[in-house]
């Protein structure tokens, strides 16, 4: 009879929750929800296009993976569908006479209270600004005027997949940002050229940015 069964286990009558149609019910939960890794390591969050399940909830992560070039094994039709779906998305707004000098996929370290995570997006270096842009939902996650950049350094840091090089920016009188991209060397070169500053490499380990300040 479905969920309208009554029981008196606790003395009173009540509706007892049930699981009914196993698979279909599960699909909404298992394919759209649950933990999805947003890490460099993930290689798949595949849906089953055959059953006609759209992957809206997973789009942010899929985009991350596409950008990281980790979707080789992804079903071709899904990839085409995704490319089409994301084609109309808003691009970053530039000022007149502002030109993009360099663009790469990367992330920004975000730490506020107990929350600390890498926020992924596209880094845009223009002749005026350095910006982290997230396409979906569209938002500028970070922005600094090149003329306010005081210092740029890089350092190798431990990472759960081994070691990797991160870039530290100091700007606006002591504020810090820690960023990572897949094209660190190219970005360094472009930043040096655009800011006419030389970038030093340091070997700081276990450094932390807390509320916008660097703690070593």
């Amino acid at each position, binding site marked *: 009879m479905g969920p309208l069964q009554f029981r008196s286990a606790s003395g009173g009558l*009540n509706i007892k929750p049930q699981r009914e149609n196993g698979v279909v019910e599960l699909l909404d939960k298992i394919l759209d929800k649950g933990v999805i890794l947003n890490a460099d390591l993930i290689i798949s969050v595949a849906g089953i296009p055959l059953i006609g399940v759209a992957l809206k909830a997973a789009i942010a992560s899929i985009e991350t993976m596409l950008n990281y070039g980790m979707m080789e094994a992804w079903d071709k039709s899904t990839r085409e569908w995704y490319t089409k779906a994301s084609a109309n998305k808003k691009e970053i707004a530039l000022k007149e006479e502002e030109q993009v000098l360099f663009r790469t996929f990367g992330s920004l370290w975000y730490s506020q209270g107990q929350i600390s995570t890498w926020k992924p997006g596209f880094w845009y270096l223009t002749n005026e600004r350095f910006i982290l842009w997230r396409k979906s939902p569209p938002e500028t996650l970070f922005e600094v005027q090149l003329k306010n950049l005081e210092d740029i350094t890089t350092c190798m840091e431990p990472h759960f997949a081994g070691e990797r090089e991160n870039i530290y920016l100091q700007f606006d009188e002591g504020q810090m940002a820690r960023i990572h991209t897949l094209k660190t060397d190219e970005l360094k070169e472009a930043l040096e050229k655009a800011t006419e500053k030389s970038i030093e490499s340091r070997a700081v380990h276990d450094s932390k940015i807390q509320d916008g300040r660097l703690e070593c």
Partner: protein
Amino acid sequence: MGRYLYSIANGNTKLSFGHIGLEESLVYSIPYKDIMAIVHLCSPKPYETDDEDKAKSWVLEHSYVIDRATNEFGTVLPFSFDVIIKGDDLTVKNWIQENYIRIKKELENVENKAEYSIQIFYDHDTFGKKIVEVNKELEDLKEKINSMPQGTAYLYQRKYELSSKKLILEEIDLLSQEFSSIIMQYVGDMKIDKKVSWVPERYKDKELMMAFACLVHHEKIDALGDALEEINNREGFAVRFTGPWAPFSFARLQEV
């Protein structure tokens, strides 16, 4: 090499669950401190198939492993289907280590709770009739229409239909708010289910009014059931209550 992830559970033992995973894979745990990931070893590529039956059995197997872990270790953080980490046990361990505080916090949030889905339907005819009957203005209009010449009557009939539809929607809106606040008394957290792909045949002639996923403490389930029964007994309404599910809608590791 890769590791297919099912869930994160409380516990710190290295365990084998037997060949209960996708394609009879051997499911085991990778502990770090007092929590552990439940995984199987696989090649680093997603599970894909054109065979619908196969896909369905994968989904059921994925869910079965999550349910087994829930039975043994309490509420787990369930992974979405087909989440595979590239690397070995150490990679998984490092990932847990890096995210330990967040994972732990999420596990505490779901402790002794489970996810339940609640859908409330209304019968447009039954409910609509009741609403319109008690509205004086509409009643008068209906009477007038009966004594009008045909052409005019048609126009007023349209007006009557639009007004009653508006009235019904307003009433439904009010009741949605009332039902939400009733349910909220019993649940720890509540999310709107934007997608309801399937409902049983017996609800097909009714309109879906609201759909939620709720995180509910074990001790509050009976009381919630009582409250839902009260709603279900109201004329023109039907409540669908499913669960317990692993907290798929409340495992928020991917969000800031």
